[in-house]
Structure formats: structure tokens, C-alpha cells
């Protein structure tokens, strides 16, 4: 206990270290606040869209009861029914925001919804803030915490070597190895306390325990890797200054240059396809279909004998069929884009192993549910819900039936099912642990070195 206090006093001696520590306390608090704010914003957006959908549904029920027509469609017309499919806030958004704020969280589902146009007119938020990026807890841990680790560990032994105190230290402690392990462990406590406190506070603020734990595990392993690297360099280097320089270069390489280079490399190896081609393909299909609307409707009714007795007239029916046909004809183009995205994701998975920072950040946003994986699941579920919606109302549309108030009230609602699977996280944790073990072996080898011993 006394050695812990002694080490702590040593670390916090002087105004600069205290300022740095205070800065990190402030940053951690800020990261938490930013996460809580984002969760509140997301909750409000989803709640407002849900409320709008329920309000419209209640209004429709009243219109049907009163036979009151609003807009173009008669009350209870199946084509006029609308429901939201909204993505609730990610379970770990307090810990990692990732690129979630960029992605649309509500799709409006109607009989005419098409998978390629589920999200339209979403460009209303300012790009200025998005382009500068968010400073969430994960970003602080990945980018800034390694600097704290470097500041704490760069002079692990090299500082004593600078001051020609190694002999004295060896004589006092009996073994320099013990000193190194002792110091490394104690100095790791500070960043460890930061991430642990952040995870506990996030849990207290509503983050699911397993999400907070998985995030904490990745953060701790990532900082442990940095601590061991800093310890190893701090032992090897002849002077504290050169240890600091090497470590700062490592930070620059792994945290700044490599992730940026990986992003550029992915762009080069598997460029994001311009959606311009998709737009044009869709337009070509639409123009063709507009000229064959009645022919399409006839064919659809032949293909769906369950709709026997259907009224072949009416714009809504023709439009419904045209939308289905457009979706099916555009599907190969959409699949090309989906395949390009999958290819890009594969490249990212491969190249991310080059930079522990990229890897750990990806893992943190994955467990928090703020990377693209959860949003992809949402899009797939929203599309499936659109299918359910169509199945539910198709007969009404083709047999010319309007909904009763009870039928309107009992229209399906969308519920998001959280995707499962922590395979990626366990692989990532395993990799970081392996990296840590390798660095520990290197460090041990250095400590066992005769000259040092």
C-alpha cells in the first residue's frame, strides 16, 4: 500500500502531470456527457416519429368512424395507411457513437414502400459537425488515452538510467524485473481507473451490463497493449527522451497515419460505388414501367389467383404493382451495391488487423451497436416489415375494401430485434490479449538481459 502511494505521489508530482490527469478526468466526463446527450437526442427523434405514426393512426380510425375524407384517399383506404419502422438508441451509444448519428433511424412504411427508397430526404442535419467528428468515450480511449499511457510509462527504467540510478534501484529492490512489473502495474492503474469508472457510470446511466463489460474489456486490453509497449520501450531505450520519441512515433503511426491509410487503401482496393448508377438504373425501369402499367396489373392478377374478383382499375393498384415490379427489376443493381459493400467490409476486416487502434475502435462501436452492423440489421428488418405490411393490406387494396376502425387500430407495428453474436468481439479480445502476451514476453526478455539485471 505504501509503495502504491509512493508511486502515485511520484506520478502526480509537479504541475504538468496533475494538469494532464485533470484533463483526462475532464475528457472522460465530457465523453460520458456527449454519449448521454446523443442517446437523449436519438430517443427524442424515435419517440417523435412513433408519436406521429400513432397520432396518424388514431386520426385515421376517427376518420373511418366519421366517414371523413382528408387528402386524396377515402377513409380507411389501404394505400393511405402509414407506419414507422424506427431504430431505438443503440445499447452502448453512451460509450461509442461511431457513425450512428449519420444514419437515418426511421423508415416510413406504406403499401408503396420500396427497399431502394426506404430512406429519402434525410439530408437535413448540418454536415459541418459531422465532418469534424464526435469525441465520444471510445475516441478518447483509442486516440488520447495512449498518450497518457506513454506519458506515464516512457521513463519506466530509462528515467533511472538517465539519472544513473539503476544500480541503486537494483540494490534496493533486489531485482529490476520486480521493479518494472511493480511500476507497470501501478501506472496502468490510472488509465484503468478511467475506463473502469467510465464503464460503471455508463452502466449506471442505463447501458446494458454485458455491453459495458465488453467495451471495458476491449478498452482495458487496448490500453494494456499500449502499457506493455511503453514499458518495453521504456526499458530498452537508453534515455527517457528517446523512449518518448519512439513511443510518440508509434502512436502517430498506429493511431493517426495507419487508420487513415487503411481507409484510403480500402477506397483504392474497393471503392464505394457511386449511387449515381443506381439512380439511373431505377429511372430506366420506372420509365419503361409507366408505359406498361395496365399490362403489368393484368399480369400481376394472373400471377396472384388468390386475388380473384379483384378490381383491375384504380391508380393505387397500378402503382402498387409498378412499385413491386420496379423493386424486382432494380434488385440486381441493388445487389451489386450490396456486394460492393460486403467486399469493402471484407477488406476493412482484413486491413484493420494492421492497426490495433482501428481494430479496437471497430470492436467498441460493434459492441455499442453504433457501427454499420446494427443499422444493416435494422434496414433488413424494416424491409421485412414492409413485406408484412404489404401482405396485410394487399387483399384490401385489390378487393376494394377499406379498413374498419378496429382493423386500422390493429395494423402491424414494427419492433426492432437486437442482433446477436459476440464472435467478432471475442476474436478481437483474443488478438489484443495475444499482442499483450507477445509484448510481455519481449519485456521479460529485456528484463532478463544480463546487463540490465
Amino acid at each position: 500500500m505504501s509503495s502504491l502511494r509512493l508511486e502515485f505521489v511520484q506520478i502526480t508530482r509537479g504541475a504538468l502531470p496533475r494538469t494532464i490527469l485533470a484533463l483526462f478526468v475532464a475528457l472522460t466526463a465530457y465523453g460520458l456527457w456527449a454519449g448521454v446527450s446523443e442517446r437523449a437526442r436519438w430517443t427524442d427523434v424515435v419517440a417523435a416519429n412513433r408519436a406521429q405514426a400513432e397520432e396518424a393512426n388514431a386520426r385515421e380510425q376517427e376518420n373511418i368512424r366519421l366517414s371523413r375524407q382528408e387528402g386524396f384517399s377515402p377513409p380507411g383506404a389501404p394505400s393511405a395507411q402509414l407506419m414507422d419502422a424506427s431504430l431505438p438508441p443503440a445499447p452502448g451509444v453512451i460509450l461509442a457513437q461511431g457513425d450512428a448519428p449519420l444514419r437515418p433511424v426511421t423508415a416510413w412504411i406504406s403499401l408503396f414502400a420500396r427497399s431502394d427508397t426506404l430512406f429519402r430526404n434525410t439530408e437535413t442535419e448540418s454536415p459541418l459537425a459531422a465532418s469534424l467528428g464526435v469525441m465520444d468515450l471510445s475516441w478518447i480511449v483509442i486516440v488520447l488515452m495512449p498518450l497518457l499511457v506513454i506519458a506515464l510509462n516512457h521513463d519506466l527504467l530509462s528515467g533511472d538510467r538517465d539519472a544513473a540510478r539503476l544500480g541503486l534501484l537494483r540494490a534496493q529492490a533486489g531485482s529490476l524485473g520486480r521493479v518494472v512489473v511493480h511500476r507497470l502495474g501501478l501506472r496502468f492503474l490510472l488509465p484503468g481507473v478511467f475506463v473502469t469508472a467510465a464503464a460503471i457510470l455508463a452502466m449506471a446511466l442505463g447501458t446494458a451490463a454485458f455491453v459495458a463489460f465488453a467495451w471495458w474489456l476491449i478498452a482495458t486490453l487496448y490500453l494494456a497493449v499500449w502499457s506493455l509497449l511503453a514499458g518495453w520501450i521504456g526499458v530498452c531505450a537508453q534515455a527517457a527522451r528517446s523512449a518518448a520519441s519512439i513511443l510518440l512515433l508509434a502512436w502517430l503511426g498506429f493511431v493517426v497515419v495507419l487508420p487513415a491509410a487503411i481507409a484510403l487503401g480500402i477506397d483504392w482496393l474497393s471503392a464505394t460505388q457511386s449511387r449515381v448508377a443506381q439512380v439511373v438504373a431505377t429511372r430506366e425501369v420506372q420509365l419503361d414501367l409507366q408505359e406498361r402499367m395496365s399490362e403489368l396489373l393484368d399480369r400481376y392478377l394472373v400471377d396472384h389467383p388468390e386475388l380473384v374478383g379483384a378490381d383491375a382499375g384504380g391508380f393505387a393498384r397500378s402503382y402498387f404493382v409498378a412499385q413491386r415490379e420496379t423493386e424486382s427489376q432494380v434488385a440486381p443493381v441493388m445487389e451489386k451495391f450490396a456486394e460492393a459493400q460486403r467486399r469493402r467490409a471484407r477488406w476493412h476486416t482484413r486491413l484493420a488487423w494492421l492497426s490495433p487502434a482501428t481494430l479496437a475502435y471497430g470492436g467498441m462501436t460493434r459492441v455499442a451497436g453504433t457501427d454499420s452492423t446494427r443499422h444493416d440489421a435494422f434496414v433488413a428488418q424494416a424491409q421485412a416489415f414492409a413485406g408484412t405490411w404489404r401482405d396485410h393490406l394487399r387483399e384490401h387494396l385489390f378487393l376494394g375494401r377499406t379498413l374498419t376502425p378496429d382493423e386500422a387500430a390493429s395494423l402491424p407495428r414494427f419492433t426492432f430485434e437486437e442482433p446477436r453474436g459476440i464472435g467478432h468481439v471475442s476474436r478481437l479480445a483474443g488478438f489484443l490479449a495475444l499482442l499483450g502476451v507477445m509484448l510481455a514476453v519481449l519485456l521479460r526478455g529485456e528484463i532478463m538481459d544480463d546487463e540490465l539485471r
Partner: protein
Amino acid sequence: MSALGTGAAELRQAWRDGRARTALFALLALAAITLAIGWQQQARQESDVAQATAVDRRLWEGQATRNPHSVAHFGQYAFKPAGALSAFDPGLTPWLGTALWMEAHYQNSATYRPAEDQRDQPILATLSGAFVMQILAPLVLIFMGFGLVARERERQTLKLALASGASPVAWLTGKFLALAVVAAILYLPAWAPVMLADSDDARQRALYLALAYGVFLLTIAALIIAVSARAGTARGALLTLLGGWVLMALVLPRLGATFAEEVAPSTDTGQFWRDVRAALEGGIDGHSPAGAREEALLQETLRQYGVAREEDLPVSFAGISMQAGEEHANVVYDHFYGRLQQDEQRQRRVLRGVSLLTPWITVRSLSAGMAGTDAEHHWHFVRATERYRRDLQRYLNGDFTQNAKGQDFDYQADPRLWRETAVFSYRAPRVGEVARSYAPDALLLLGWATLAVVLMLSAARTLGREASSS
């Protein structure tokens, strides 16, 4: 020793250091690779846009005999050109839509933001020429310049140098010149846009861009010398400079972004369209319902033509009504899109305030502005598409009004009607047209440059006192 002599001596010493040479060449190589990939992407985007624009026009003209209102609903797409300088600085491009559907009744927002398709957001940013100049070049300068004065102090050679009669200002200027030469080498990639430029305007923009980066790198060099001159040790100088870099280049811009969002929050998409729909229905003030507007329009039209019934009108009232609906919607869209722009302008002002704490936000804003990849240029494109859309609707509704009498939506127009419409062609604003809006950023950058020089001269005076006290 004169300033030039000190500078030359420093340069010789720096050149002998293999690490310095490696860092310089590595950065230049990285910049070259980055620019090559950026240029390749920009060329692909330009070709996609040109191709899509041609196909969309062919589709538009290829519509068979139809009702003009159906044609208006089919609409046209406008695709935003990337611009030659986006290869150097993509700016806000990933966060801005690339395609805009111009149809009847709706002012749609641009869709297909590249960022939504990038499943792997980088931790800081994707490498680009601008990233190299803004983030990496200052770092190389820091590593090469942190010890220029502080190390002399550590080695006790500082007093010796100043005691030999050299003026502290001249001596420090020499150190600055040495670092400025390094900055000039790092500055080379900033000239790449001049070569990429495909028009006089782009060349002019590229020159301003290069000028901005020149001032920025010299500012950083002067700050480095000032810190190095005041630091007790080289290590202290390095720590201070790196800490400053982390704070100013990485942390403050993000804090600024959050602060700007707090002061002028972005409009939520759902709320935006709820407000628009409500205003389209009930008027912006909420007190002019659509039904009442329609009735008033009918009465006014009947008065204008001197008839008592709609059937007696010599024109199609449906056409008049649709155009009136468009005019009403235009007012609504101007109001709400105007509000979005105002919010962005407020955010921009907040960020300019934060620029007083860091020159990085300023140089970023100037760079994206000159490259034509910022929000200001995006809005210019949006306004151009909206002008075209409104003209198109007026033209089609005009034909409907004149020729659809008695047939209304059964009226079929000759395809020549839409084949003869003007082709949408977008021209990005000339630099002279938008320069005013970047004047505050340019002034802020100059302010930082002045501050850096003042700090350097103040450090020189401190050095003089230090030398004379010994």
C-alpha cells in the same frame, strides 16, 4: 552570424540527420500516393456524373405522349459534379448528397451521401492531400523544429551564440528561416491542385489554396520556434508542442463541433418534414388552410376572366391551381430550407469563434472552401437545381393551363413539350463570387500568423535578456 547564416547552418545540420530526410521524403511520398488515389476517385466520380446526366436527359426526352403533370412527377435528376480540386481536399463531400430529384410539388434534399455507404468510418479521417497538409506536415515540422533553440540552451551553446554579438532577433529569424525551408519542402503537395486544375477558376482557387497552406505552415513554424525558444529543455518543448498539436488539431475541432451543435442544433429530418407538411397544408402561419386558398384562387380567377363558373373559364383551372400550389410550396420551402442554411451559418460562426483557439479549424474551412467542397458550395448547387425545378414546373403547368381545358389529367401533350426544355447544366460559383464569405477565415488565419510572429519576436527579446543577464 546573420539570420541567413544561422539558417543555412541549421539546414546543413538538419540535412545530415538521416531521420529528418526520411521523415520529409516519407511525407512527400505519402502525399503523392494520396493525391494519385484522390485524383483517380475524382475522375471516376466526374465520369459517373457525366454519364448519368446524359442518360437521365435521354430518359426525360424519351417519354412518350403524356400528361405534362405526369412528366413533371417523373422529373429529372441533378448530379453534383465533384470538382477538380476535390481530389486534393474532399472537404464535406462524404457528408453531402450527390443526387437531387427535381420533381413536381417537392423540393427534395440531395440524397446518397457517400458517408452512408462507407461502412468503416476512419478514426480521424481518410488520407487526402488536405489531411497530409493539415495534420501530418505540422507534425513533421514539430519533430524537426522543437529542439532548434531549446537544444542550444540545454547544451549551453545558446549564450555562446548570443554572446558572439549576434542579434537575438536575427539569430532567431535564422532558426525560423531554416524551419521555413523545411516547411517549403513540405508545402510542395499544396501546389498539386494547381496542376489538377482544369479551368482558370480552378487554377485561381488552387493558388489561394496554396497561399492559405503557405501562411498556415509558416504560422506553425513560427509557433514552434517561439515555444522552442521559451522551453527550458528540448523535451519540454517537444511535449508542449505535441500537446498543443493534439489539443488544437484533434481535440478542439471536435469540441467545437459539439459546441456548435449545442448552440445551433441540426434539424431532425422527421421534424423538418413534419413542419414542411404542416406549412404546405396550413400555410407557414398555420392560418391559411389549403381548401380556403383554393377557393380564393378560384374566385380570383373567375373575376380575372369575367366569368361566373369554372366550366366557363377559357383555360384549365387545374393547371392554374397546380401552379398556385407550386408558388405556395416555394414560399414554404424557401422558409424551411432557409432556416437550415441559417442554422449552418450559425454553426459556422460558432466554429469561427473556436478558431480563436486553434488555426486548424480556419485552415480546414479555407481549404474546403477553395476546393469547392464545403457546405457553401453545396447550397449553391441546391439553389441552382431548385431554380431549374421551379422554371420547369412553371413551364409544364403553363402548358397544362393553356391546353388541358376540359380534359385536365386526361390531356396528352406532344413530347416536343419536354424535349424543348432547357438542359440543366450546373456551373460552380467562381471564386470571386464566394470570396467574401471566406474573408473572416482568411483574416483569422492572418491573425494567427501575426500572433505567431509576435510570440516569436517576444521570445527573441526574452533570449536577449537571458544573454545579457549572464
